[in-house]
């Protein structure tokens, strides 16, 4: 005798509804699966065939969980957006900025990137805080997890994961035309080079670190919810 209720409960772990409402959804879906399974058994399928066929109705449990959550939420789209994108984004932003400040105050000296233009100019182009970079995957993972828990799509998850680098990116993009003009007047083109080094150090590298955490969480959540992993239960 298959425990459909337990199976659905495990698949819909991330269903962010109140306990009573959640139990109600789980019972209803379990009843549907059970009825489908029994119908297939009556038609002559073996237990394994019927179970496989029944479970094939849901290709992506994570997506089903998200769709149910969105459908049952009484709040409007704006509230969902806040829960799925803005809250995780602001959390990753303030955590990463707070941690950077702490590392700047109490952490080891940063790694300086020096650029040269022939023999004439040497500039300290960027400071790289390695402990900060190494901590970013954890912060990215937290953002992705919170977004996913609120029923956020993959797009919302990854957007909130990389949100902390957006202000830097905006700043550097704004500085780009000014730097290009100044550089063109001064001649040695060292400022433009420094700007690109800074984009690498403050945008590309942190974004990659944050995304590492986000992708890992996404991968773990999707693995946990793969139908095949529990089909035999």
């Amino acid at each position: 005798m298959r425990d459909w209720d337990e199976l659905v409960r495990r698949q819909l772990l991330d269903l962010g509804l109140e306990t009573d409402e959640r139990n109600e959804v789980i019972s209803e879906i379990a009843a549907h699966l059970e009825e489908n399974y029994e119908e297939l058994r009556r038609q002559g399928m073996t237990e394994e065939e019927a179970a496989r066929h029944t479970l094939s109705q849901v290709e992506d449990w994570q997506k089903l969980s998200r769709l149910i959550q969105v459908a049952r939420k009484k709040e409007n789209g704006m509230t969902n957006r806040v829960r799925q994108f803005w809250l995780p984004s602001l959390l990753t932003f303030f955590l990463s900025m707070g941690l950077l400040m702490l590392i700047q105050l109490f952490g080891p000296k940063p790694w300086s990137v020096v650029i040269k233009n022939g023999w004439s100019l040497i500039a300290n182009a960027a400071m790289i805080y390695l402990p900060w970079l190494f901590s970013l995957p954890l912060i990215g993972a937290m953002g992705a997890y919170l977004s996913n828990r609120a029923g956020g799509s993959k797009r919302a998850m990854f957007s909130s994961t990389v949100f902390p680098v957006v202000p830097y990116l905006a700043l550097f993009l704004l500085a780009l035309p000014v730097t290009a003009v100044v550089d063109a007047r001064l001649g040695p083109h060292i400022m433009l080079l420094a700007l690109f080094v800074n984009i690498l150090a403050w945008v590309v590298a942190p974004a990659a670190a944050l995304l590492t955490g986000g992708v890992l969480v996404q991968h773990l959540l999707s693995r946990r919810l793969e139908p095949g992993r529990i089909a035999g239960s």
Partner: protein
Amino acid sequence: MIGAGIKRGTAELAVLSVLEDGPLHGYELARRIEQQTKGALRFTLAALYPMLYRMEQRRWIRGAWETSDNGRRRRCYRLTPAGKKKLSPLRQEWSELFQALRRLKKVAHA
């Protein structure tokens, strides 16, 4: 076979129409639609429940737990007065759309 986009639009009409005959639980509702449309409209669990919950939020249908003769508890959906009210203009909209499509020569011969 009917495409996904058209199916999405007709799904709510199908659910409301079938529930007009009386309350049904999700599995039976899906089966009834599949039978009556000769398999042209087929709902998987993943498509059915988000739609039912959405329609419930809009108060077109109401779900309530009931115990069947064999002792099983099932959540049965019934049409609400708001759902009945919605059904008529929805039918009208689809009917007008089909008539408009039929007037197009190329579609009529398709």
